[in-house]
Protein backbone atom coordinates (compact mmCIF):
# COMPACT_ATOMS: atom_id res chain seq x y z
CA UNK A 1 0.00 0.00 0.00
CA UNK A 2 1.45 3.36 -0.98
CA UNK A 3 1.88 6.10 1.63
CA UNK A 4 -0.75 8.17 -0.14
CA UNK A 5 -3.36 5.40 0.03
CA UNK A 6 -2.41 4.77 3.63
CA UNK A 7 -3.02 8.34 4.72
CA UNK A 8 -6.21 8.48 2.62
CA UNK A 9 -7.50 5.36 4.37
CA UNK A 10 -6.23 6.42 7.77
CA UNK A 11 -8.12 9.73 7.74
CA UNK A 12 -11.34 7.92 6.86
CA UNK A 13 -10.87 4.76 8.88
CA UNK A 14 -8.21 5.16 11.58
CA UNK A 15 -7.46 1.46 11.91
CA UNK A 16 -3.70 1.67 12.22
CA UNK A 17 -3.67 4.35 14.90
CA UNK A 18 -6.38 2.70 16.96
CA UNK A 19 -4.57 -0.64 16.70
CA UNK A 20 -1.48 1.21 17.89
CA UNK A 21 -3.13 2.88 20.86
CA UNK A 22 -5.72 0.28 21.88
CA UNK A 23 -3.80 -2.92 21.33
CA UNK A 24 -0.07 -2.77 20.80
CA UNK A 25 0.62 0.05 23.26
CA UNK A 26 -2.01 -0.94 25.82
CA UNK A 27 -0.62 -0.74 29.35
CA UNK A 28 -0.71 -4.07 31.15
CA UNK A 29 0.34 -5.07 34.66
CA UNK A 30 3.62 -6.96 34.88
CA UNK A 31 3.99 -10.43 36.31
CA UNK A 32 0.84 -12.04 35.11
CA UNK A 33 1.09 -15.83 35.24
CA UNK A 34 0.70 -17.92 32.10
CA UNK A 35 -2.73 -19.02 33.34
CA UNK A 36 -3.87 -15.40 32.80
CA UNK A 37 -3.81 -16.29 29.08
CA UNK A 38 -6.70 -18.74 29.58
CA UNK A 39 -9.25 -16.10 28.58
CA UNK A 40 -7.51 -15.54 25.24
CA UNK A 41 -7.13 -19.29 24.79
CA UNK A 42 -10.85 -19.83 25.41
CA UNK A 43 -11.73 -17.14 22.87
CA UNK A 44 -9.33 -18.61 20.31
CA UNK A 45 -10.70 -22.12 20.89
CA UNK A 46 -14.26 -20.89 20.44
CA UNK A 47 -13.26 -19.26 17.13
CA UNK A 48 -11.53 -22.48 16.13
CA UNK A 49 -14.63 -24.52 17.04
CA UNK A 50 -16.82 -22.14 15.05
CA UNK A 51 -14.66 -22.55 11.96
CA UNK A 52 -14.29 -26.35 12.21
CA UNK A 53 -17.99 -26.60 13.06
CA UNK A 54 -18.82 -24.57 9.97
CA UNK A 55 -16.92 -27.07 7.79
CA UNK A 56 -18.69 -30.00 9.47
CA UNK A 57 -22.08 -28.31 9.06
CA UNK A 58 -21.62 -28.31 5.27
CA UNK A 59 -21.85 -32.12 5.31
CA UNK A 60 -23.93 -32.80 8.40
CA UNK A 61 -27.47 -34.11 7.88
CA UNK A 62 -29.71 -33.31 10.86
CA UNK A 63 -32.00 -36.36 10.90
CA UNK A 64 -31.92 -39.48 13.07
CA UNK A 65 -29.81 -42.21 11.45
CA UNK A 66 -28.78 -39.96 8.56
CA UNK A 67 -26.84 -37.81 11.04
CA UNK A 68 -24.66 -40.74 12.10
CA UNK A 69 -24.15 -41.76 8.46
CA UNK A 70 -23.20 -38.20 7.49
CA UNK A 71 -20.53 -38.14 10.21
CA UNK A 72 -19.21 -41.47 8.89
CA UNK A 73 -19.18 -39.87 5.44
CA UNK A 74 -17.20 -36.90 6.80
CA UNK A 75 -14.69 -39.21 8.49
CA UNK A 76 -14.21 -41.56 5.56
CA UNK A 77 -15.01 -39.82 2.29
CA UNK A 78 -14.53 -36.06 2.73
CA UNK A 79 -10.94 -34.93 2.13
CA UNK A 80 -9.36 -34.52 5.56
CA UNK A 81 -12.85 -34.74 7.04
CA UNK A 82 -11.56 -37.06 9.77
CA UNK A 83 -9.08 -34.34 10.73
CA UNK A 84 -11.72 -31.60 10.93
CA UNK A 85 -13.98 -33.86 12.96
CA UNK A 86 -11.08 -34.64 15.30
CA UNK A 87 -10.32 -30.91 15.54
CA UNK A 88 -13.90 -30.18 16.54
CA UNK A 89 -14.16 -33.01 19.10
CA UNK A 90 -10.78 -32.25 20.67
CA UNK A 91 -11.45 -28.52 20.49
CA UNK A 92 -14.51 -29.13 22.67
CA UNK A 93 -12.34 -31.03 25.16
CA UNK A 94 -9.81 -28.17 25.26
CA UNK A 95 -12.54 -25.53 25.64
CA UNK A 96 -14.07 -27.35 28.59
CA UNK A 97 -10.69 -28.06 30.16
CA UNK A 98 -9.80 -24.36 29.95
CA UNK A 99 -13.24 -23.25 31.23
CA UNK A 100 -13.26 -25.65 34.18
CA UNK A 101 -9.69 -24.59 34.98
CA UNK A 102 -10.70 -20.91 35.00
CA UNK A 103 -13.60 -21.62 37.36
CA UNK A 104 -11.36 -23.66 39.67
CA UNK A 105 -8.60 -21.05 39.63
CA UNK A 106 -11.04 -18.24 40.36
CA UNK A 107 -12.37 -20.15 43.36
CA UNK A 108 -8.86 -20.97 44.55
CA UNK A 109 -7.54 -17.41 44.34
CA UNK A 110 -10.75 -15.83 45.61
CA UNK A 111 -11.10 -14.08 42.25
CA UNK A 112 -14.91 -14.06 42.58
CA UNK A 113 -14.87 -11.66 45.56
CA UNK A 114 -15.95 -8.03 45.36
CA UNK A 115 -15.56 -6.18 43.05
CA UNK A 116 -15.32 -9.23 40.77
CA UNK A 117 -18.86 -10.59 41.35
CA UNK A 118 -20.01 -9.76 37.84
CA UNK A 119 -16.96 -11.24 36.09
CA UNK A 120 -17.54 -14.38 38.17
CA UNK A 121 -21.19 -14.53 37.17
CA UNK A 122 -20.27 -14.06 33.50
CA UNK A 123 -17.73 -16.89 33.80
CA UNK A 124 -20.50 -19.13 35.15
CA UNK A 125 -22.92 -18.01 32.43
CA UNK A 126 -20.27 -18.97 29.90
CA UNK A 127 -19.77 -22.35 31.58
CA UNK A 128 -23.52 -23.00 31.56
CA UNK A 129 -23.71 -21.93 27.93
CA UNK A 130 -20.89 -24.22 26.75
CA UNK A 131 -22.41 -27.09 28.74
CA UNK A 132 -25.66 -26.66 26.82
CA UNK A 133 -23.78 -26.31 23.51
CA UNK A 134 -21.68 -29.34 24.44
CA UNK A 135 -24.77 -31.40 25.17
CA UNK A 136 -26.34 -30.42 21.85
CA UNK A 137 -23.12 -31.32 20.02
CA UNK A 138 -23.06 -34.68 21.79
CA UNK A 139 -26.70 -35.28 20.81
CA UNK A 140 -25.89 -34.35 17.20
CA UNK A 141 -23.40 -37.24 16.99
CA UNK A 142 -26.49 -39.50 16.91
CA UNK A 143 -24.54 -42.52 18.17
CA UNK A 144 -25.81 -45.51 20.09
CA UNK A 145 -25.61 -43.57 23.39
CA UNK A 146 -26.43 -39.97 22.52
CA UNK A 147 -29.50 -41.05 20.50
CA UNK A 148 -31.01 -42.48 23.68
CA UNK A 149 -29.78 -39.64 25.83
CA UNK A 150 -31.61 -37.18 23.59
CA UNK A 151 -34.64 -39.46 23.65
CA UNK A 152 -34.72 -39.56 27.44
CA UNK A 153 -34.06 -35.83 27.81
CA UNK A 154 -36.81 -34.85 25.39
CA UNK A 155 -39.33 -37.32 26.78
CA UNK A 156 -38.65 -36.09 30.31
CA UNK A 157 -38.88 -32.50 29.04
CA UNK A 158 -42.20 -33.14 27.34
CA UNK A 159 -43.67 -34.39 30.60
CA UNK A 160 -42.82 -31.15 32.39
CA UNK A 161 -45.56 -28.59 32.82
CA UNK A 162 -45.76 -24.78 32.91
CA UNK A 163 -42.56 -22.79 32.47
CA UNK A 164 -39.94 -25.62 32.39
CA UNK A 165 -42.20 -27.57 30.04
CA UNK A 166 -42.59 -24.54 27.78
CA UNK A 167 -38.81 -24.12 27.55
CA UNK A 168 -38.32 -27.79 26.77
CA UNK A 169 -41.05 -27.70 24.16
CA UNK A 170 -39.59 -24.58 22.64
CA UNK A 171 -36.09 -26.07 22.44
CA UNK A 172 -36.82 -29.67 21.44
CA UNK A 173 -40.33 -29.43 20.00
CA UNK A 174 -41.57 -32.37 22.06
CA UNK A 175 -40.24 -35.93 22.34
CA UNK A 176 -37.34 -36.70 19.99
CA UNK A 177 -38.55 -37.23 16.43
CA UNK A 178 -37.42 -36.56 12.89
CA UNK A 179 -37.21 -32.79 13.46
CA UNK A 180 -35.43 -32.71 16.81
CA UNK A 181 -31.84 -32.90 15.54
CA UNK A 182 -32.48 -29.98 13.19
CA UNK A 183 -33.50 -27.79 16.13
CA UNK A 184 -30.58 -29.03 18.19
CA UNK A 185 -28.14 -28.31 15.34
CA UNK A 186 -29.42 -24.75 14.88
CA UNK A 187 -29.25 -24.03 18.61
CA UNK A 188 -25.80 -25.62 18.82
CA UNK A 189 -24.40 -23.02 16.41
CA UNK A 190 -26.57 -20.08 17.49
CA UNK A 191 -25.62 -20.46 21.16
CA UNK A 192 -21.95 -20.69 20.16
CA UNK A 193 -22.25 -17.21 18.67
CA UNK A 194 -23.92 -16.06 21.88
CA UNK A 195 -20.81 -17.40 23.65
CA UNK A 196 -18.72 -14.70 21.93
CA UNK A 197 -21.07 -12.08 23.33
CA UNK A 198 -20.65 -13.43 26.85
CA UNK A 199 -16.85 -13.44 26.41
CA UNK A 200 -16.94 -9.81 25.24
CA UNK A 201 -19.08 -8.76 28.23
CA UNK A 202 -16.71 -10.62 30.54
CA UNK A 203 -13.69 -8.86 29.08
CA UNK A 204 -15.33 -5.44 29.48
CA UNK A 205 -16.42 -6.22 33.06
CA UNK A 206 -12.96 -7.52 33.94
CA UNK A 207 -11.27 -4.40 32.59
CA UNK A 208 -13.66 -2.15 34.52
CA UNK A 209 -12.75 -3.62 37.90
CA UNK A 210 -9.10 -4.45 37.29
CA UNK A 211 -6.89 -2.73 39.89
CA UNK A 212 -4.67 0.07 38.57
CA UNK A 213 -1.24 -1.54 38.19
CA UNK A 214 1.78 0.14 39.76
CA UNK A 215 4.22 -1.11 37.17
CA UNK A 216 3.11 -1.59 33.58
CA UNK A 217 4.47 -2.81 30.25
CA UNK A 218 3.02 -2.47 26.76
CA UNK A 219 1.06 -5.36 25.32
CA UNK A 220 3.51 -5.68 22.45
CA UNK A 221 6.12 -7.14 22.65
CA UNK A 222 5.70 -8.19 26.29
CA UNK A 223 2.31 -9.83 26.40
CA UNK A 224 2.37 -10.93 22.76
CA UNK A 225 5.46 -13.00 23.57
CA UNK A 226 3.82 -14.17 26.80
CA UNK A 227 0.67 -15.27 24.97
CA UNK A 228 2.77 -16.87 22.24
CA UNK A 229 4.15 -19.28 24.86
CA UNK A 230 0.67 -20.04 26.20
CA UNK A 231 -0.69 -20.62 22.68
CA UNK A 232 2.23 -22.84 21.65
CA UNK A 233 1.91 -25.08 24.72
CA UNK A 234 -1.90 -25.17 24.40
CA UNK A 235 -1.54 -26.14 20.71
CA UNK A 236 0.96 -28.84 21.68
CA UNK A 237 -1.47 -30.44 24.14
CA UNK A 238 -4.22 -30.08 21.55
CA UNK A 239 -2.10 -31.77 18.85
CA UNK A 240 -1.18 -34.68 21.13
CA UNK A 241 -4.88 -35.27 21.79
CA UNK A 242 -6.01 -34.81 18.17
CA UNK A 243 -3.47 -37.17 16.70
CA UNK A 244 -2.88 -39.72 19.44
CA UNK A 245 -6.15 -39.80 21.40
CA UNK A 246 -8.79 -38.39 19.04
CA UNK A 247 -11.77 -39.63 21.02
CA UNK A 248 -10.34 -39.17 24.49
CA UNK A 249 -13.01 -38.76 27.16
CA UNK A 250 -15.85 -39.88 24.89
CA UNK A 251 -18.00 -42.94 25.38
CA UNK A 252 -16.72 -45.40 22.77
CA UNK A 253 -20.12 -46.97 22.36
CA UNK A 254 -21.28 -43.68 20.84
CA UNK A 255 -19.12 -44.49 17.81
CA UNK A 256 -21.61 -47.21 16.85
CA UNK A 257 -24.85 -46.42 15.04
CA UNK A 258 -27.93 -46.07 17.23
CA UNK A 259 -30.46 -48.86 17.25
CA UNK A 260 -33.98 -47.56 17.93
CA UNK A 261 -34.84 -50.88 19.54
CA UNK A 262 -31.80 -51.34 21.79
CA UNK A 263 -31.18 -49.08 24.80
CA UNK A 264 -27.60 -49.23 26.11
CA UNK A 265 -27.35 -50.28 29.76
CA UNK A 266 -25.47 -47.09 30.68
CA UNK A 267 -25.75 -43.67 29.04
CA UNK A 268 -22.34 -42.23 29.95
CA UNK A 269 -21.82 -38.80 28.35
CA UNK A 270 -18.45 -37.34 27.32
CA UNK A 271 -16.20 -36.33 30.21
CA UNK A 272 -17.15 -32.65 30.18
CA UNK A 273 -20.83 -33.38 30.79
CA UNK A 274 -20.17 -35.81 33.65
CA UNK A 275 -20.60 -33.30 36.53
CA UNK A 276 -24.02 -32.18 35.25
CA UNK A 277 -24.97 -35.75 34.45
CA UNK A 278 -24.01 -36.82 37.99
CA UNK A 279 -26.14 -34.09 39.61
CA UNK A 280 -29.06 -34.97 37.33
CA UNK A 281 -28.69 -38.70 38.03
CA UNK A 282 -28.91 -38.14 41.80
CA UNK A 283 -32.67 -37.70 41.50
CA UNK A 284 -35.07 -40.12 39.88
CA UNK A 285 -37.63 -37.52 38.81
CA UNK A 286 -37.02 -35.03 35.97
CA UNK A 287 -37.99 -32.07 38.17
CA UNK A 288 -35.65 -33.27 40.91
CA UNK A 289 -32.82 -33.58 38.38
CA UNK A 290 -33.40 -30.07 37.09
CA UNK A 291 -33.59 -28.77 40.64
CA UNK A 292 -30.29 -30.42 41.65
CA UNK A 293 -28.43 -29.16 38.57
CA UNK A 294 -29.78 -25.63 39.11
CA UNK A 295 -28.93 -25.80 42.81
CA UNK A 296 -25.41 -26.91 41.93
CA UNK A 297 -25.09 -23.83 39.75
CA UNK A 298 -26.89 -21.58 42.23
CA UNK A 299 -24.33 -22.11 45.00
CA UNK A 300 -21.59 -21.24 42.51
CA UNK A 301 -23.43 -18.04 41.55
CA UNK A 302 -23.91 -17.22 45.23
CA UNK A 303 -20.24 -17.77 46.11
CA UNK A 304 -19.35 -14.03 46.27
CA UNK A 305 -22.15 -13.45 48.81
CA UNK A 306 -21.59 -16.62 50.84
CA UNK A 307 -17.99 -15.61 51.23
CA UNK A 308 -17.28 -13.94 54.60
CA UNK A 309 -13.81 -12.53 53.95
CA UNK A 310 -13.49 -8.78 54.28
CA UNK A 311 -10.97 -8.05 51.57
CA UNK A 312 -8.38 -10.49 52.94
CA UNK A 313 -6.45 -12.83 50.69
CA UNK A 314 -7.56 -16.48 50.78
CA UNK A 315 -5.63 -18.42 53.40
CA UNK A 316 -4.17 -21.90 53.31
CA UNK A 317 -7.18 -23.59 54.95
CA UNK A 318 -9.56 -22.12 52.36
CA UNK A 319 -7.24 -23.17 49.53
CA UNK A 320 -7.07 -26.72 50.85
CA UNK A 321 -10.88 -26.77 50.98
CA UNK A 322 -11.07 -25.68 47.31
CA UNK A 323 -8.53 -28.36 46.36
CA UNK A 324 -10.65 -30.94 48.21
CA UNK A 325 -13.71 -29.64 46.34
CA UNK A 326 -11.90 -30.23 43.03
CA UNK A 327 -11.11 -33.82 44.12
CA UNK A 328 -14.73 -34.16 45.23
CA UNK A 329 -16.05 -33.15 41.80
CA UNK A 330 -13.45 -35.39 40.13
CA UNK A 331 -14.59 -38.32 42.30
CA UNK A 332 -18.21 -37.51 41.45
CA UNK A 333 -17.37 -37.67 37.73
CA UNK A 334 -15.55 -40.99 38.15
CA UNK A 335 -18.48 -42.47 40.08
CA UNK A 336 -20.85 -41.28 37.35
CA UNK A 337 -18.62 -42.64 34.56
CA UNK A 338 -18.48 -46.00 36.32
CA UNK A 339 -22.18 -46.54 35.69
CA UNK A 340 -25.08 -47.21 38.00
CA UNK A 341 -24.33 -49.43 40.99
CA UNK A 342 -25.02 -49.38 44.72
CA UNK A 343 -21.48 -48.18 45.43
CA UNK A 344 -21.42 -45.39 42.85
CA UNK A 345 -24.86 -44.21 43.98
CA UNK A 346 -23.67 -43.99 47.61
CA UNK A 347 -20.43 -42.28 46.58
CA UNK A 348 -22.29 -39.81 44.33
CA UNK A 349 -24.61 -38.88 47.20
CA UNK A 350 -21.64 -38.28 49.51
CA UNK A 351 -19.78 -36.25 46.87
CA UNK A 352 -22.82 -34.11 46.04
CA UNK A 353 -23.44 -33.62 49.77
CA UNK A 354 -19.87 -32.43 50.25
CA UNK A 355 -20.22 -30.09 47.26
CA UNK A 356 -23.15 -28.27 48.88
CA UNK A 357 -21.53 -28.48 52.31
CA UNK A 358 -18.44 -26.79 50.89
CA UNK A 359 -20.29 -23.77 49.50
CA UNK A 360 -22.98 -23.40 52.15
CA UNK A 361 -21.03 -24.18 55.34
CA UNK A 362 -17.29 -24.86 55.04
CA UNK A 363 -16.31 -22.06 52.70
CA UNK A 364 -18.20 -19.30 54.64
CA UNK A 365 -16.75 -20.61 57.93
CA UNK A 366 -13.21 -20.80 56.58
CA UNK A 367 -13.32 -17.31 55.09
CA UNK A 368 -14.90 -15.87 58.26
CA UNK A 369 -12.17 -17.51 60.37
CA UNK A 370 -9.41 -16.30 58.12
CA UNK A 371 -10.67 -12.71 58.00
CA UNK A 372 -10.68 -12.48 61.83
CA UNK A 373 -6.94 -13.03 62.13
Amino acid at each position, binding site marked *: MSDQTKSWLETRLPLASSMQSCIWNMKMAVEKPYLAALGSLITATLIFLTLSGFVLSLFYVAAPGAAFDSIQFISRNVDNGWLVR*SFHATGATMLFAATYLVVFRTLLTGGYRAPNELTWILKLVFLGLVLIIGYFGYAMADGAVSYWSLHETTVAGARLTSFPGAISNWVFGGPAGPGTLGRVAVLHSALALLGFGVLALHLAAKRAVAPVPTKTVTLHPYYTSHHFVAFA*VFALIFAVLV*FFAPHWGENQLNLAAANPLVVPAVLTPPWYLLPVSAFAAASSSPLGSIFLVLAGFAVLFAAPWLDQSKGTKPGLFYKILVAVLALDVFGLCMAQADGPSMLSSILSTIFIGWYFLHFLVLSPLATAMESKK
Partner: protein
Amino acid sequence: MKFGISAAALLAASLAFSNAAKAEDTLSPLHWQSQGNFGSYDKAALQRGFLVYQTVCASCHSANALHYRDLTALGFSPDQVAAIASNVKLADGSQASMDDNFKNPFPDSQVAAKAFGGAIPPDLSTLVAAHPRGTQYIYSLLTGYQAAPSDVNVMANHYYNVAYPGNQIAMPAPLKDDMVTYADGTKATTAQEASDVAAFLTWASHPNLDARKQIGLRAVIFLIFLSVLAIANKRKIWSGVV
Protein backbone atom coordinates in the same frame (compact mmCIF):
# COMPACT_ATOMS: atom_id res chain seq x y z
CA MET B 1 -23.40 -71.64 -0.76
CA LYS B 2 -21.62 -73.28 -3.69
CA PHE B 3 -21.36 -69.87 -5.31
CA GLY B 4 -19.93 -68.46 -2.12
CA ILE B 5 -17.13 -70.99 -2.04
CA SER B 6 -16.22 -70.57 -5.69
CA ALA B 7 -16.25 -66.78 -5.29
CA ALA B 8 -13.89 -67.13 -2.34
CA ALA B 9 -11.60 -69.37 -4.38
CA LEU B 10 -11.64 -66.84 -7.22
CA LEU B 11 -10.89 -64.07 -4.77
CA ALA B 12 -8.00 -66.02 -3.26
CA ALA B 13 -6.66 -66.74 -6.75
CA SER B 14 -6.98 -63.12 -7.85
CA LEU B 15 -5.04 -61.99 -4.79
CA ALA B 16 -2.42 -64.71 -5.10
CA PHE B 17 -0.28 -63.23 -7.83
CA SER B 18 0.21 -59.93 -6.08
CA ASN B 19 1.73 -61.16 -2.90
CA ALA B 20 5.38 -62.01 -3.15
CA ALA B 21 5.40 -61.45 0.62
CA LYS B 22 6.43 -64.29 2.89
CA ALA B 23 4.61 -65.97 5.72
CA GLU B 24 4.18 -63.86 8.85
CA ASP B 25 3.90 -64.69 12.50
CA THR B 26 1.62 -62.30 14.35
CA LEU B 27 0.69 -64.80 17.05
CA SER B 28 3.80 -65.40 19.15
CA PRO B 29 3.51 -63.08 20.89
CA LEU B 30 0.05 -61.97 19.76
CA HIS B 31 0.36 -58.44 18.40
CA TRP B 32 -1.06 -56.00 15.89
CA GLN B 33 1.36 -53.67 14.20
CA SER B 34 -1.11 -50.76 14.34
CA GLN B 35 -1.07 -50.67 18.12
CA GLY B 36 1.03 -48.21 20.10
CA ASN B 37 1.62 -44.54 19.42
CA PHE B 38 3.84 -45.11 16.41
CA GLY B 39 2.33 -48.32 15.01
CA SER B 40 1.07 -48.42 11.43
CA TYR B 41 -1.01 -51.03 9.64
CA ASP B 42 0.58 -54.26 8.49
CA LYS B 43 -0.81 -54.39 4.95
CA ALA B 44 -0.10 -58.10 4.54
CA ALA B 45 -2.19 -58.81 7.65
CA LEU B 46 -4.94 -56.46 6.39
CA GLN B 47 -5.06 -58.30 3.05
CA ARG B 48 -5.25 -61.66 4.79
CA GLY B 49 -7.89 -60.25 7.11
CA PHE B 50 -9.93 -59.01 4.15
CA LEU B 51 -9.79 -62.50 2.62
CA VAL B 52 -11.20 -63.93 5.86
CA TYR B 53 -13.78 -61.13 6.05
CA GLN B 54 -14.93 -61.62 2.47
CA THR B 55 -14.98 -65.42 2.68
CA VAL B 56 -16.56 -65.77 6.11
CA CYS B 57 -17.91 -62.62 7.76
CA ALA B 58 -19.44 -60.95 4.69
CA SER B 59 -21.95 -63.74 4.20
CA CYS B 60 -23.89 -62.53 7.28
CA HIS B 61 -22.49 -59.11 8.31
CA SER B 62 -22.75 -55.75 6.57
CA ALA B 63 -20.08 -53.03 6.65
CA ASN B 64 -22.15 -50.19 5.28
CA ALA B 65 -19.64 -47.39 5.74
CA LEU B 66 -17.06 -49.06 3.47
CA HIS B 67 -16.76 -48.87 -0.31
CA TYR B 68 -14.85 -51.33 -2.45
CA ARG B 69 -12.62 -48.47 -3.62
CA ASP B 70 -11.39 -48.04 -0.02
CA LEU B 71 -9.58 -51.38 -0.36
CA THR B 72 -6.74 -49.73 -2.28
CA ALA B 73 -5.57 -48.59 1.16
CA LEU B 74 -4.81 -52.24 1.94
CA GLY B 75 -2.16 -52.28 -0.76
CA PHE B 76 -4.34 -53.77 -3.52
CA SER B 77 -3.95 -52.26 -6.97
CA PRO B 78 -7.03 -50.62 -8.54
CA ASP B 79 -7.25 -53.58 -10.94
CA GLN B 80 -7.31 -56.04 -8.06
CA VAL B 81 -9.98 -54.01 -6.29
CA ALA B 82 -12.03 -53.89 -9.49
CA ALA B 83 -11.69 -57.68 -9.68
CA ILE B 84 -12.75 -58.04 -6.04
CA ALA B 85 -15.81 -55.84 -6.68
CA SER B 86 -16.76 -57.60 -9.88
CA ASN B 87 -16.80 -60.92 -7.99
CA VAL B 88 -19.57 -59.56 -5.79
CA LYS B 89 -23.12 -60.04 -7.02
CA LEU B 90 -25.48 -57.34 -5.78
CA ALA B 91 -29.09 -58.03 -4.84
CA ASP B 92 -30.31 -57.01 -8.32
CA GLY B 93 -27.93 -59.52 -9.91
CA SER B 94 -25.48 -56.95 -11.26
CA GLN B 95 -21.77 -56.89 -10.49
CA ALA B 96 -20.60 -54.48 -7.82
CA SER B 97 -18.39 -51.59 -8.89
CA MET B 98 -15.54 -49.84 -7.12
CA ASP B 99 -17.89 -47.13 -5.87
CA ASP B 100 -20.46 -49.46 -4.35
CA ASN B 101 -20.73 -49.87 -0.62
CA PHE B 102 -19.76 -53.25 0.73
CA LYS B 103 -22.63 -55.56 -0.08
CA ASN B 104 -25.21 -55.90 2.65
CA PRO B 105 -26.05 -59.62 2.74
CA PHE B 106 -29.63 -58.90 3.78
CA PRO B 107 -32.13 -56.50 2.21
CA ASP B 108 -33.02 -55.21 5.69
CA SER B 109 -32.50 -56.04 9.32
CA GLN B 110 -35.87 -57.80 9.66
CA VAL B 111 -34.88 -60.39 7.06
CA ALA B 112 -31.58 -60.83 8.92
CA ALA B 113 -33.37 -61.23 12.24
CA LYS B 114 -35.67 -63.82 10.72
CA ALA B 115 -32.71 -65.77 9.36
CA PHE B 116 -30.94 -65.93 12.72
CA GLY B 117 -33.72 -66.49 15.21
CA GLY B 118 -34.03 -62.82 16.12
CA ALA B 119 -30.31 -62.03 16.43
CA ILE B 120 -29.24 -59.37 13.90
CA PRO B 121 -25.57 -59.64 12.84
CA PRO B 122 -24.14 -56.20 13.74
CA ASP B 123 -22.65 -53.92 11.10
CA LEU B 124 -18.86 -54.28 11.17
CA SER B 125 -17.83 -50.78 9.99
CA THR B 126 -17.31 -49.32 13.46
CA LEU B 127 -17.33 -52.41 15.66
CA VAL B 128 -13.69 -52.08 16.76
CA ALA B 129 -14.00 -48.33 17.45
CA ALA B 130 -17.17 -48.81 19.48
CA HIS B 131 -15.67 -51.41 21.82
CA PRO B 132 -13.00 -50.82 24.49
CA ARG B 133 -9.80 -52.55 23.32
CA GLY B 134 -11.73 -53.45 20.19
CA THR B 135 -9.01 -55.25 18.22
CA GLN B 136 -8.19 -57.57 21.09
CA TYR B 137 -11.90 -58.07 21.72
CA ILE B 138 -12.54 -59.30 18.17
CA TYR B 139 -9.64 -61.72 18.47
CA SER B 140 -10.73 -62.99 21.88
CA LEU B 141 -14.32 -63.37 20.71
CA LEU B 142 -13.39 -65.33 17.60
CA THR B 143 -11.09 -67.64 19.55
CA GLY B 144 -13.27 -67.72 22.68
CA TYR B 145 -15.66 -70.55 21.78
CA GLN B 146 -15.56 -73.37 24.30
CA ALA B 147 -17.68 -76.22 25.55
CA ALA B 148 -20.05 -74.76 28.15
CA PRO B 149 -19.24 -75.62 31.78
CA SER B 150 -21.58 -78.25 33.20
CA ASP B 151 -23.41 -75.73 35.42
CA VAL B 152 -24.31 -73.42 32.51
CA ASN B 153 -27.49 -73.92 30.54
CA VAL B 154 -26.87 -72.57 27.07
CA MET B 155 -30.01 -71.05 25.51
CA ALA B 156 -31.43 -72.39 22.26
CA ASN B 157 -29.50 -71.18 19.18
CA HIS B 158 -26.73 -69.82 21.40
CA TYR B 159 -23.12 -70.82 21.87
CA TYR B 160 -20.77 -70.55 24.81
CA ASN B 161 -18.04 -67.95 24.39
CA VAL B 162 -15.72 -66.79 27.18
CA ALA B 163 -15.08 -63.36 25.64
CA TYR B 164 -18.69 -62.38 24.99
CA PRO B 165 -20.51 -60.40 27.71
CA GLY B 166 -22.82 -62.94 29.34
CA ASN B 167 -20.94 -65.78 27.63
CA GLN B 168 -23.86 -66.78 25.38
CA ILE B 169 -23.61 -65.60 21.81
CA ALA B 170 -25.99 -66.20 18.93
CA MET B 171 -23.19 -66.46 16.37
CA PRO B 172 -21.81 -70.00 15.94
CA ALA B 173 -18.00 -70.25 15.87
CA PRO B 174 -17.33 -68.73 12.43
CA LEU B 175 -13.67 -69.72 11.98
CA LYS B 176 -11.89 -73.03 11.76
CA ASP B 177 -8.44 -74.05 10.59
CA ASP B 178 -7.72 -73.69 6.86
CA MET B 179 -10.99 -71.96 6.01
CA VAL B 180 -8.99 -69.81 3.62
CA THR B 181 -5.68 -70.28 1.84
CA TYR B 182 -3.34 -67.36 2.34
CA ALA B 183 -1.42 -66.31 -0.75
CA ASP B 184 1.64 -65.36 1.26
CA GLY B 185 2.05 -68.84 2.73
CA THR B 186 0.99 -67.92 6.27
CA LYS B 187 -0.60 -70.94 7.91
CA ALA B 188 -4.35 -70.35 8.21
CA THR B 189 -4.97 -71.50 11.76
CA THR B 190 -8.11 -70.34 13.54
CA ALA B 191 -6.02 -68.03 15.72
CA GLN B 192 -4.22 -66.59 12.68
CA GLU B 193 -7.51 -65.97 10.87
CA ALA B 194 -8.94 -64.32 13.99
CA SER B 195 -5.89 -62.11 14.39
CA ASP B 196 -5.94 -61.11 10.71
CA VAL B 197 -9.64 -60.33 10.60
CA ALA B 198 -9.22 -58.31 13.82
CA ALA B 199 -6.53 -56.31 12.00
CA PHE B 200 -8.85 -55.80 9.03
CA LEU B 201 -11.79 -54.70 11.19
CA THR B 202 -9.49 -52.27 13.02
CA TRP B 203 -8.69 -50.73 9.67
CA ALA B 204 -12.41 -50.65 8.82
CA SER B 205 -13.06 -48.64 11.99
CA HIS B 206 -9.98 -46.41 11.74
CA PRO B 207 -9.10 -46.08 8.05
CA ASN B 208 -7.10 -42.90 8.73
CA LEU B 209 -4.91 -44.28 11.52
CA ASP B 210 -1.68 -44.24 9.48
CA ALA B 211 -2.16 -40.68 8.21
CA ARG B 212 -3.24 -39.52 11.67
CA LYS B 213 -0.11 -40.81 13.36
CA GLN B 214 2.20 -39.59 10.59
CA ILE B 215 0.83 -36.05 10.60
CA GLY B 216 0.64 -36.18 14.38
CA LEU B 217 4.29 -36.99 14.86
CA ARG B 218 5.33 -34.08 12.63
CA ALA B 219 2.87 -31.70 14.27
CA VAL B 220 4.01 -32.61 17.77
CA ILE B 221 7.72 -32.30 16.94
CA PHE B 222 7.06 -28.93 15.29
CA LEU B 223 5.04 -27.68 18.25
CA ILE B 224 7.67 -28.80 20.76
CA PHE B 225 10.25 -26.71 18.89
CA LEU B 226 7.79 -23.84 18.62
CA SER B 227 7.12 -23.96 22.38
CA VAL B 228 10.83 -23.95 23.21
CA LEU B 229 11.36 -21.06 20.80
CA ALA B 230 8.41 -19.18 22.31
CA ILE B 231 9.76 -19.62 25.84
CA ALA B 232 13.26 -18.45 24.82
CA ASN B 233 11.73 -15.48 22.99
CA LYS B 234 9.60 -14.52 25.98
CA ARG B 235 12.53 -14.72 28.40
CA LYS B 236 14.71 -12.56 26.18
CA ILE B 237 12.02 -9.89 25.80
CA TRP B 238 11.14 -9.86 29.50
CA SER B 239 14.75 -10.03 30.73
CA GLY B 240 14.94 -6.27 31.32
CA VAL B 241 11.56 -5.99 33.05
CA VAL B 242 11.37 -8.51 35.85
